[in-house]
């Protein structure tokens, strides 16, 4: 089984994000890190691959207009076999649909039996890419998985819902999106880190995939969110608990 895992590379969350004042795009340094939410997808892929043994491989897929590889190396160090990097300046500022077209084309080209993605990224978080990719590829989308099993050549997942979960089954090839509750991502090992530098990373452009980047989305304005208000302080005069209950009732918590 050929498993392809989407890994988005994002600016290091440890340093503050900057928006370009003209385009409102996130200013992206050339070295971006692995989006934490994609570590879960990588882990699911590695566990499936371990289970399937020799016949399985794990390939990473990342679209990064500036050609960052740092985040890819992080995921390779966890144990993936290789990576496909879509590096193309014309994709800078690509909207979700363009991103999905690129990822779908690359997954098809790689003959993926299973494409795994996060449910939503940390920086863009439109949360639409996995479903769009499945639609473009014409394959089932198994989304919001909190548990993944491979049974009789099919995928069975527990799909996280507000009330609990649904059990959903789908045939391969398919797109799978996983939540951060699905598995505990492994740490890369020292050997994994050393091996990552010699693993193959195939670099492609939009043209190689037959996709023309047309940006149909424009960010017209960006506003700061309202700062959090200071909380109410209730002085306890022995009856403070009553006021707290009142408050909780007001906001309908109790």
């Amino acid at each position, binding site marked *: 089984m050929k498993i392809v895992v989407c890994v988005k590379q994002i600016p290091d969350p440890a340093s503050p994000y900057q928006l370009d004042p003209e385009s409102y795009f996130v200013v992206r340094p050339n070295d971006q890190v692995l989006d934490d939410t994609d570590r879960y997808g990588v882990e699911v892929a590695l566990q499936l691959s371990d289970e399937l043994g020799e016949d399985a491989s794990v390939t990473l897929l990342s679209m990064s207009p500036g050609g960052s590889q*740092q985040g890819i190396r992080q995921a390779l160090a966890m144990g993936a076999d290789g990576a496909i990097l879509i590096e193309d300046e014309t994709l800078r500022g690509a909207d979700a649909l363009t991103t999905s077209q690129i990822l779908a084309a690359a997954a098809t080209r790689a003959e993926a039996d299973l494409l795994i993605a996060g449910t939503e990224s940390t920086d863009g978080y439109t949360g639409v890419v996995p479903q769009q990719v499945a639609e473009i590829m014409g394959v089932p989308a198994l989304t919001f998985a909190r548990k993944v099993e491979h049974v009789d050549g099919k995928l069975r997942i527990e799909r996280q819902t507000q009330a609990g979960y649904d059990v959903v089954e789908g045939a391969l090839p398919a797109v799978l999106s996983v939540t951060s509750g699905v598995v505990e991502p492994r740490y890369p*090992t*020292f*050997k994994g880190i050393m091996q990552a530098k010699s693993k193959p990373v195939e670099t492609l452009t939009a043209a190689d995939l037959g996709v023309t980047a047309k940006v149909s989305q424009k960010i017209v304005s960006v506003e700061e969110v309202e700062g959090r208000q200071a909380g109410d302080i209730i002085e306890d005069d022995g009856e403070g608990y009553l006021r707290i209950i009142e408050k909780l009732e007001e906001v309908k918590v109790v």
Partner: protein
Amino acid sequence: MTFQLNAEHEALRAMVREFADREIVPNAAQWDRDHHFPVDVVHKMGDLGLLGAAFDEEYGGGGGDFLSVCIAIEEIGRADQSMGITLEAAVGLGINPIANFGTSEQKARWLPDLFAGRTLAAFGLTEPGGGSDAAGATRTRAVLDGDEWVINGSKSFITNSGTEITSVITVTAITGDEEISAIIVPAGTPGLIVEPAYEKLGWHASDTHGLVFDDCRVPAENLLGERGRGFHQFLATLDDGRIAVGALSVGLIQACLDLALEYSLEREAFGRPIAANQGLAFQLADLDVALEAARLLTYKAAALKDAGLPIKQAAARAKLYASEAAVSATRVLTQVLGGYGFMEEGPAARFYRDAKILEIGEGTSEILRLVISRGLGLPVV
């Protein structure tokens, strides 16, 4: 000269830091309070490849460099000095002599489990009669009786010697006139008595015991490498270990600076953050300089070792400077935290207690100054 770590070193640092932040930081205070040696941390460090990082792939090592080990020790030490010394001693004192001087049979027998973190090794040099003059103070004797060494004597302050996964202790012993050899003693050998753990000022979660050898018999082939090479072997082992203790110290200085910065920006006095006072800010500026200097001395010594160049002086400088800077750093941190710094509810008090030993183990500051003076050609005794 660029003074840049490569991408793999940075990736290793990120990995170890995340591991330490998640698995060590939240528990370190409790382990310290309970004097609890968390054996699963050793297993996990083994799984991550930290114990074997710098050694032969033939025995399951990582085939990496010594600088990588130093980065790992620094990052673990930044979270907790007890776990930092556990890693440092496991690699520098436990694995190193066997990997460097052991026969291929000895390596094949002990190294795979040590690299994987399934077992731990210790190195017994110091005796009740003294550690600085280790050669002169050695009283432990090993006598060949047929095809067995019979060992009698005792060792003091031996790290990792009494854990539930300790597999082997390499000990130095007199084996003839003016002759010291190192002998591998498997844990559990009859006649090897592991004394109760010491009550220590710091490093509470690290394992330290005195050892007694009472007609302790091991096979003749347990001689480490060549007979009579014990003195040379432990000097070389200590040189490597000094760089690693430098790294452990760097981790502590970093932890102190991070915490002092955070607290001094939040804490207010006289209507302003305490960090706005030069008297306080300048201490942190000095701490920053000390951190950089300690790190550079340590990394340079490690790089010299990786390049196969002489390291005696560089290792002594790194350990001397970094350990003394670490002790100062904990004093500054405690001062910046005021009364809270003296309380066991935060890590500062633990750091303060843990720091002092850095100036003592694997060569006291005085002994290191002696080494450096001699390196300068001074006729110092």
